[in-house]
């Protein structure tokens, strides 16, 4: 397949692996920010191809994983209401919250659906606003989660609804931003990350100028990187080259998709519909100015206000170490619950839920390495 196969070529991959081996003189820890990159790395076994001195830490860039439990709870409460059509990207349907509004056993949107809630999977946020137009007697709510990548697509239907007077449409927003999370990781006393692969798709929208001050301030190389095996290997190569040479700049591996200034019209739309707010990250905690909420002009479309849920809060409580996982301080296999008490079917924490979560990716592709886990899986 054109534009895909050439980035999965085994011979070219081997050449990069050899080049990386020739470059490394000491241990380095590099964090890939994005869950899509984590998924690719584990799926293709890219970390296994690298020299032992290179540690890849899996970052907090899975929007499904970092959406806080209280927002999931709000989604469940809205979706369980009788006059509501609740629309979401498919991944969010299995994320566990902490309550059970539909008297179903599970506390996720799938369980609310099984108990009679009208929950739709949509592929484009614009589909949700179309559903609102087709069902004027229902409240249609879209679950607007994601990083900067999905922000323009989630902003568009809100803007459209305002322009076209679609008053039965609203959005439950839990948008997060990458640069504040990187700073949170870098300022943590336990930080072990020495270089970053920045998320290519986020940068297609935002460009990478906002990473330049971070690279300077914390003296870390940041390489904007794509998602295919060769993208990742090249991004790792570029990052290690900077580390070995003692440089700390922002470089762009994903030049076929990313420009330094990003996509200006998309940024303008996001700036119009959203405003920067403090945001809780599941497993990490609140990071100031790290998320997007609806701008004052669009407050009428805020589902939290419309359904009276803006004051709702929830606490999480379990043995999950997702915060350490998402800061790169621990690997999934180092968690005592991983693979036994915590599996994709019975997740204790968010990184086990989404296919882009580090724990789920390890569980899905890596169980073979641990005999105990194999026994669990063979019992089916």
């Amino acid at each position, binding site marked *: 397949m054109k534009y895909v196969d050439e980035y*999965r070529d085994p011979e070219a991959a081997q050449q990069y692996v050899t080049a990386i081996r020739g470059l490394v003189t000491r241990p380095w820890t590099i964090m890939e920010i994005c869950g899509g990159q984590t998924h690719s790395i584990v*799926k293709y076994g*890219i970390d296994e191809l690298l020299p032992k001195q290179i540690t890849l830490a899996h970052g907090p860039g899975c929007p499904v994983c970092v959406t806080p439990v209280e927002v999931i709870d709000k989604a469940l409460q809205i979706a369980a209401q009788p006059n509501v059509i609740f629309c979401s990207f498919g991944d969010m349907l299995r994320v566990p919250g902490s309550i059970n509004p539909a008297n179903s056993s599970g506390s996720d949107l799938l369980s609310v659906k099984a108990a009679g809630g009208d929950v739709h999977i949509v592929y484009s946020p614009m589909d949700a606003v179309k559903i609102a137009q087709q069902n004027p007697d229902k409240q249609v709510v879209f679950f607007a989660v994601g990083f900067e990548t999905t922000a323009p697509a989630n902003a568009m239907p809100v803007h459209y609804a305002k322009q076209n007077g679609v008053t039965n449409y609203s959005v439950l927003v839990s948008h997060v931003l990458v640069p504040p999370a990187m700073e949170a990781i870098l300022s943590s006393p336990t930080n072990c990350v020495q270089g970053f692969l920045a998320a290519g798709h986020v940068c297609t929208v935002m460009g990478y100028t906002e990473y330049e001050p971070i690279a300077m301030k914390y003296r870390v190389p940041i390489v904007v990187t794509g998602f295919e095996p060769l993208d990742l290997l090249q991004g790792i190569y570029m990052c290690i080259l900077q580390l070995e040479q003692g440089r700390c700049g922002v470089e762009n591996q994903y030049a076929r998709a990313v420009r330094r200034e990003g996509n200006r019209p998309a940024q303008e739309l996001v700036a119009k519909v959203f405003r920067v707010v403090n945001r809780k990250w599941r497993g990490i905690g609140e990071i100031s100015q790290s998320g997007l909420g609806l701008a004052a002009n669009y407050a009428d479309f805020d589902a939290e206000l419309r359904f009276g849920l803006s004051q709702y809060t929830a606490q999480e409580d379990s043995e999950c170490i997702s915060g350490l996982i998402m800061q790169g301080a621990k690997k999934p296999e180092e968690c005592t619950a991983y693979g036994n008490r915590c599996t994709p079917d019975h*997740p204790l924490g968010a990184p086990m839920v989404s296919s882009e979560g580090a724990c789920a990716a390890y569980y899905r592709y890596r169980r*073979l390495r641990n005999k105990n886990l194999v026994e669990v899986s063979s019992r089916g």
Partner: protein
Amino acid sequence: MGEVKEFRLQCPVPLNDTDHVQLAHGGGGRRMHELLEGLLLPNFSNEALLERHDGATLTISGAKLAFTTDSYVVRPLFFPGGDIGTLAINGTVNDLAMCGARPLYLSSALILEEGLPMETLRRVVESMRLSAASANVQLVTGDTKVVDKGKGDGIFINTAGIGVIEHDISISPKNVRPGDAILLSGDIGRHGIAIMAVREGLSFENAIESDCATLWEPVKALLDACVEIHCLRDLTRGGLSSGLIEIAEAAGVRCAVNEADIRVREEVAGACEILGLDPLYLANEGRFVAFVPEHEAERAVDILRNVDVSSQATRIGRVVDGPAGLVTLKTQLGTERIVDMLGGEQLPRIC
């Protein structure tokens, strides 16, 4: 800049076992297996059922028969390459074929929703007639029920089938052993993408047609040539991954397959890239895997390639010693990973 106010390293409480049926319980993945192993098999335990095969093989008064049933609840009813009628015939015929049985007789139970256009029903019945004729089976008994408007989804069909086993080869997951070659009868994933494209209103440059087809002909070709077949499995809802994992679990072996040998059409691969799907988990309705001893592998592939529906058959891997129940995949980069069974639904209600 981002200031970390607190680092609460905690997550939510575990999910309990679900006490409502979810779509995933019929999705052909792990949830469905939990239902089978936890509820159905313990309640109806018997020798034929415990074979965990696509159908039951029974000896009645000296005659070896295969018996199977399947229900069809596909939405949309019509899709490129077929409709619910073709599925209802081919699916049951294929389950018989996977037992190595020549399909003979089918029953058909129609559950119709009040208000269904008669023209729709006529089209479906015509498809069933054509498919049955093409598979050389007769529809010998049936039933029709109508439910209130809103209580069904147009048409649900159940078919059951009987076939006769006219050879002495034992075809069953329990016969799969280390060293067996794993053959795949063609490209994968077309049915899943065809259904999804219609259901979700996705349009691609070239319409992707379902691979829906009867599989008795290639199985017959193998049997006629006296290929020592160890096991056959048609790939349906759970895709190639579930088909292989089911066999690996039932036989207590590991299936090791090569990604590069698994054929996926370019348009299906493209759709998967766009939608974030994995072709290994996409539904098929005209593909199967065959487990044969190593010394029969080459001959079996040649035989399959001489039949239209399996003209792109390839060898995709081999059976190796444990860990039991695992399927591993050698990636294009030469690394090895696990192929896991789908936990929930990748596409809701395909067939």
